[in-house]
């Protein structure tokens, strides 16, 4: 599953932060999951467990938060959520799942039809915060 690669990236980043802070123990990591990428959480958890092997903290320090996807048209300023966007088939969803920028290939502004929109929230996996001991 490609969720494993993203879980591995999260652990690599947390480890980098931990090393840069004198190797202090990790207390909590808050992760945000953007709605657009539609991450399969069980696959991500599996990837996390596999990447954490041998480290001094486990999956219990990770807190998962969902972030709804929101779009803003650069042409007409219309704003809209992902929910209810028409015209996304299974193939398109899969492409966006692998590579969220595929949204610009398959989606259009519901207001004016422009492909020139920005994703203002809810793209993919990001780390909101990493709490280390004595923070």
């Amino acid at each position, binding site marked *: 599953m490609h969720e494993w690669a*993203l879980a591995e990236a999260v652990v690599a980043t947390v480890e980098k932060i931990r090393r840069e802070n004198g190797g202090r123990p990790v207390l909590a990591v808050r992760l945000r999951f953007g709605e657009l990428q539609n991450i399969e959480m069980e696959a991500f958890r599996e990837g996390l467990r596999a990447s954490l092997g041998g480290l001094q903290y486990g999956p219990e320090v990770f807190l998962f938060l969902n972030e709804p996807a929101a779009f803003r048209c650069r042409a007409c300023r219309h704003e809209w959520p992902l929910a209810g966007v028409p015209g996304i088939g299974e193939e398109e969803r899969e492409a966006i799942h692998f590579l969220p920028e595929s949204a*610009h290939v398959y989606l259009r502004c519901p207001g004016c039809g422009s492909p020139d929109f920005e994703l203002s929230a809810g793209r993919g996996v990001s780390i909101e915060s990493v709490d280390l001991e004595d923070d």
Partner: protein
Amino acid sequence: MIDPRPAVIHQRLAPVRRILAFASAKGGVGKSVCSVLSALALRDRGRRVGLLDLDFQGASAHLLLGAELRFPEEEGGIRPLRVRGSLDFMSFAAFSRERAVPLRGREVSEALLELLAVTVWDPLDFLVVDMPPGIGDELLDVLRLLPGPEFVIIATPSAFALQVVERLLALLQELRLPVRGIVENMAHPGGDTAVAALAARYSLALLGSIPYLPEIEALLSSPNPLAGVLGEPMRRVARKLLGDASGEIS
């Protein structure tokens, strides 16, 4: 908010011995043709080769390779498509198919980061990167994210192309980045000294000259594009790339 992807890119590319970025600031000089043919020529010399098409908006390497576009297999990430027998290949086109890819700079960078973070390459002697034209987001991201890219510059004898290509060479020289040489594409019959002169001005090797061939598309779509007239010049390019370990532009 912290982006987790950059931290894993060096790990993803650790199985790759050399990254060759085929670049030219000028469009239409044949970067994709040269990168595809060079990848095949290196592969034919027994090297393990991958090809990464970073020209998201004008992806064409898959067309030159005759690659069937499909979603990649997932295994610890996404696996490159296996094309032409043993060439590992990744492109935005695996997701966009033959539709337009209208991306602004920030979105180009996001897509590039994502592909680099989740693509799992097998051990490779060479990862050939087909760069888009220009000196924009993709080039700056390659410099920022890829470990130790070596540049191969594509030029044609056109005076306009040469002038634009020289700007890229000057930038790479200023940044002290390794350039392995120049490939002349669409060379005039009987030869021309303009590309060789540019290479000489920058103390670079002229890796090879590919003649102007109106039938290039037919040659590329044949089962073995290096069997005919393209074979000798591309074998020369591959030999030089394999033999060259020289450093930066002097």
